[in-house]
């Protein structure tokens, strides 16, 4: 294991932020800490980096107990949401910082920094200052800077949070490819479930300071541990007291086995998808179908149809309120 966190508790004042958190991060994996804001995921990342001290519990990095080690001695790479670029240093000197601190020979530093700048596609920007870079470029510089010291683990705190949607998507794909090239154990924090599913190979869902579920993106999406995880990982709707993914519901014109009668209240076309809003047993629900399917059934508001979960669909029974 690259990182083993055991029974970590942490409070800020009287507010508990982490409660008995234990996670394992496999060497060479790309793990997402996913959860709503205020759920404790950034704090957990900072505890791993040594930027926060846990009240109780231990953190082991590459088998070594790092709980009382200062960040300086943990050999982790940390990337901040707002880049934390050294504003008075050029891109080259930013990336070289960790190597200069380690007093590596000048030639070696130059070679390594230029390699990294190539890796993050900033080789043309070596002599610029951070203020002359775009947000995406600054974040890639911060990544190269963290990688320069060959860290045991790379920790990214909402790395794309401050970027606009377009750049976010590009960087996501790019981070995945970078990880496939570099293979450094990576943990990143995000509140965006799409980002976690797309990039990570393991997802840790954190909420209210507790680990709710750990698994591959497919596992947490298809077999959520509880309604909270199911809601957080993707769209859900409620039919017959069950929480179901809207794309896992079948609509048919006539009665079917296990079906429930529903009244169509609205049909919204979203390009290829069609969102059918229904009233089932007096409650609002919605179903996601393809455009072809909607046209075939000629669904219009007021129609009475039958709905049921598709065979093999995962659903969660909600506790009766």
């Amino acid at each position, binding site marked *: 294991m690259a990182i083993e966190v055991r029974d970590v508790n942490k409070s800020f004042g009287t507010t508990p932020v982490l409660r008995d958190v234990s996670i394992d991060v496999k060497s060479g994996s790309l793990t997402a800490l996913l959860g709503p804001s205020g759920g404790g995921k950034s704090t957990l990342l900072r505890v791993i*980096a*040594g*930027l926060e001290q846990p009240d109780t519990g231990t953190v082991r990095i590459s088998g070594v107990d790092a709980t009382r080690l*200062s*960040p*300086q*001695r*943990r*050999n*982790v*790479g*940390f990337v*901040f949401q*707002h880049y*934390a*670029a*050294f*504003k*008075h240093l050029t891109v080259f000197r930013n990336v070289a*910082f*960790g190597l200069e*601190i*380690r007093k590596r020979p000048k030639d070696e530093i130059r070679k390594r920094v230029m390699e990294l700048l190539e890796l993050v596609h900033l080789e043309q920007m070596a002599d610029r200052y951070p203020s002359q870079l775009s947000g995406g470029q600054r974040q890639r510089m*911060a990544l190269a*800077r*963290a990688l*320069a*010291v060959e860290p045991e683990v790379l920790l990214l705190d909402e790395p794309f949070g401050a970027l606009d949607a377009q750049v976010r998507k590009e960087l996501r794909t790019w981070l995945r490819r970078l990880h496939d090239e570099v293979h450094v154990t990576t943990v990143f924090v995000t509140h965006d479930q799409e980002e976690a599913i797309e990039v990570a190979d393991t997802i840790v869902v954190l909420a209210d300071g507790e680990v709710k579920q750990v698994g591959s993106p497919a596992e947490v999406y298809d077999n959520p541990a509880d309604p909270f995880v199911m809601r957080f990982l993707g769209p859900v709707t409620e039919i017959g007291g069950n929480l179901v993914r809207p794309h896992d519901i079948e609509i048919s014109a006539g009665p079917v086995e296990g079906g429930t009668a529903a009244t169509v209240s609205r049909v919204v076309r979203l390009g290829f998808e069609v969102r059918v809003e229904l009233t089932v047993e007096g409650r609002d629900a919605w179903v996601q179908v393809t455009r072809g399917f909607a046209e075939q059934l000629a669904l219009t508001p007021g129609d009475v149809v039958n709905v049921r979960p598709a065979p093999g669909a995962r659903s969660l029974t909600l506790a009766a309120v």
Partner: protein
Amino acid sequence: MAKHGLRVIAIAYLFFLLVLPVGLIVWRTFGDGLGPFVEALTSASAVHAFQVTLTVALWAVAANTVFGIGTAILLVRHNFPGKRLLNALIDLPMAVSPVVVGLALILVYGKFAPVGGLLESWGVQVIFSTPGMVLATVFVALPLVVRAVVPVLEELGDEQEQAAHTLGASRLQTFLRITLPGIRWALAYGVVLCLARSLGEYGAVAVVSGRLVDQTQTLTLFVEERFQNFDQPAAFAAATALALIAVITLLLTKFLRPKG
């Protein structure tokens, strides 16, 4: 019309308060050409006063720079009981009259006071000597560096420092490589202000120095003493020199203000 009226009032106000008096000093100084000016400033007493002023100002600036950076970091980056009290105390020298500061220092460090007496027995004379003048100057110029650095340090945030730590930098390395360059312009601004204040200080220094001619006489004290003794050319020449130094520091602060 109201706009013109305001302008006239503002200009007249500044003219009678600032331009006329300073202008007259310069005019009086150079009224008989450069010769008397140079002569007055190169007299033994004037040169000595210059040296005393410089010595006192440099020590005071050095002390306030170290204290200023340390206190600013303490106030911005740390939480501790009594932080608000410290924050308020730092501004105290701005509110207290320098004469009071001088008297207070004599009460503590004078020959017949407990602390002063002890130091005297070790051979260190504070009052009526350079250490006392440095103390007085440090006191009156205390807040200038702190107040210049604090807002910039706040704006800088601590993420860059944390990033440096995770990259393996020690506290000292982080301070020298990240924090100090981040606050350099604000620090320079504060130091220049502190220097200007130290060079021009009169009240507190007048009390603790004992005004011993050719011993503890600073340039400001020299001006006053020469004027009292009807040596107007020397008084005006030294005053002009002080004014020139003020103008230079003013220009320096203007130059330093747009940070980076």
